[in-house]
């Protein structure tokens, strides 16, 4: 792997200061910063070959279409999907889940059916299913978690029933960092012929994602959480499902023949790509995936594990600091609270010290309810963070304690 100082120079934003202090960016779970090569790739589209995809005979359209389809191939290879037809570009994880919740609901869900989610889900993997349940008269069943923030697998097995139509779980808890055993979850569901959707928003940037090995039926993620642009995301679906599901949105490019009487739909994956897609975003995402692959995904995972261990050690040593989410299977996220100090107060002072952390419920209110808290401070690290930054965080937290200690 490249030297850390070299890696950091790849990211222009990491060079900036905030309040006259070097920016320490620990909110990678919300969004990641972009390497120069991604910024260049997006700029290159608009500067040198911009044309709408799949529509024209002219050279610009052709070049853009080719770059867009290359990006699709990069995504396919990155998650080890079987076919490019199984890769649909969307606006992000939320867009992908809404698409499946809608289309799957329209096609398969009847009153009395059940959908299984875990207690660790982000709102994006709860609300679309809830909306679908309301439309279709189905109900949600929730896999409970233990005090470490791990799902109770035996309880999950008990929830699987002839009424279950789909299981939708996150690969990694965005609030606590817990890694879920998605492969085992899919195995158990498939034994009952139930499909599984995996929310990979937090999983994709950390370590290896292999949808063929997971054997999940759907895998969704956002580009901006893996060093790509915002507004682009991916929906992977096994071909058999995507062929059967009705389209989510109608419009240009997703059609085969249109008459006012009847429209037939385009082949996969275009059936699910209505209207002008965010092709510049997709091309930027393709470049981001190249960047990650070039750094080395195993190397990234190893470095992030080192940062997690270092930060866990440093923060655990602070008196009155409690970490939420203590599974040994965790990505580099530390969610914590300081005794008698509101997360908002902690976050405000850390911000003034140049440290960007997230405070609040992290769009995962059920997780907070499970632990009887109203929020946490979340430090989400990635490979470009350093042990020096973690030391500064430790000192910052000690400063917070000295300011607010009663």
């Amino acid at each position, binding site marked *: 792997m490249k030297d850390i100082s070299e890696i950091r120079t790849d990211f222009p934003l990491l060079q900036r200061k905030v309040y006259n202090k070097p920016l320490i960016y620990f909110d990678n779970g919300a969004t990641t910063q972009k390497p120069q090569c991604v910024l260049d790739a997006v700029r290159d589209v608009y500067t040198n070959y911009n044309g709408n995809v799949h529509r024209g005979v002219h050279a610009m359209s052709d070049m853009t279409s080719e770059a867009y389809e290359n990006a699709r191939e990069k995504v396919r290879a990155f998650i080890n999907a079987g076919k490019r037809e199984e890769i649909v570009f969307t606006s992000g994880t939320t867009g992908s889940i809404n698409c499946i919740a809608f289309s799957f609901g329209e096609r398969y869900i009847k009153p009395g059916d059940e959908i299984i989610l875990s207690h660790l889900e982000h709102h994006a993997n709860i609300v679309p299913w809830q909306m679908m349940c309301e439309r279709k008269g189905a109900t949600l069943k929730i896999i409970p978690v233990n005090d470490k923030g791990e799902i109770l697998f035996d309880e999950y097995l008990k929830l699987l029933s002839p009424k279950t139509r789909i299981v939708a779980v996150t690969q990694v808890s965005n609030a606590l960092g817990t890694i879920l055993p998605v492969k085992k979850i899919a195995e158990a569901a498939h034994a009952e012929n139930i499909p599984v959707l995996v929310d990979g928003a937090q999983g994709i940037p950390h370590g290896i994602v292999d949808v063929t090995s997971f054997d999940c039926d759907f895998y969704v993620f956002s580009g901006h959480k893996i060093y790509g642009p915002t507004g682009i995301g991916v929906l992977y679906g096994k071909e058999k499902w995507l062929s059967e599901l009705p389209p989510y949105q109608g419009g240009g490019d997703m059609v085969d023949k249109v008459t006012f009487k009847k429209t037939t739909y385009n082949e996969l994956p275009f059936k699910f790509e209505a209207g002008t897609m965010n092709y510049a975003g997709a091309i930027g995402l393709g470049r981001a995936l190249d960047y990650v692959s070039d750094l080395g995904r195993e190397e990234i995972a190893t470095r992030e594990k080192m940062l997690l261990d270092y930060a866990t050690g440093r923060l655990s040593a602070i008196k009155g600091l409690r970490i939420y989410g203590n599974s040994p299977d965790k990505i580099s996220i530390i969610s914590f609270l300081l005794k008698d100090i*509101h997360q908002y107060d902690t976050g*405000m002072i850390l911000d*003034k010290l140049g440290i960007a952390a997230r405070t*609040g419920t992290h769009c995962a209110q059920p997780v907070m309810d499970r632990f009887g808290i*109203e929020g946490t401070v979340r430090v989400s690290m990635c490979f470009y963070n350093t042990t020096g930054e973690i030391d500064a965080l430790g000192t910052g937290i000690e400063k917070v304690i000295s300011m607010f200690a009663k």
Partner: protein
Amino acid sequence: MTINEVQDSIIEEFSLFDDWMDKYNLLIDMGKSLPVIDLKYKVKDYLIEGCQSKVWLHPGYDGHVIIFTADSDAIITRGIVALLIKVLSGRTPEEIITTELYFIDRIGLRQNLSPTRSNGLLAMVRQMKLYAMAYKAQDTGHRAQGIF
């Protein structure tokens, strides 16, 4: 003191400190002088939505001025609401509605008190003005009915 004199005195008090840490400590101290809301009003009806921390705000109206009491579970937020109360409490609905709150921009905490931060500052000001408008409308109604 007029409302603007109070605003000016707050600006002056904060101008004594250059360092943001001292300004925050002052804000924290101001939180301690907050006229604390009666426990019976510390309920959902008086909770202001739109803050990351909880803020309860209660208006007491004697037909002339509104007396605000409040509390928050976060200390910095308690300081912010204490500042607003210092300026707006004990004033007539008309004064509260028409006052331009310029002190926020000028105490040197703008970055943290800006409306785009989820500190609820905007929600607190809006709620105080809404109470003032409601009391003003109520008074106008009473006057129209000849009650006053």
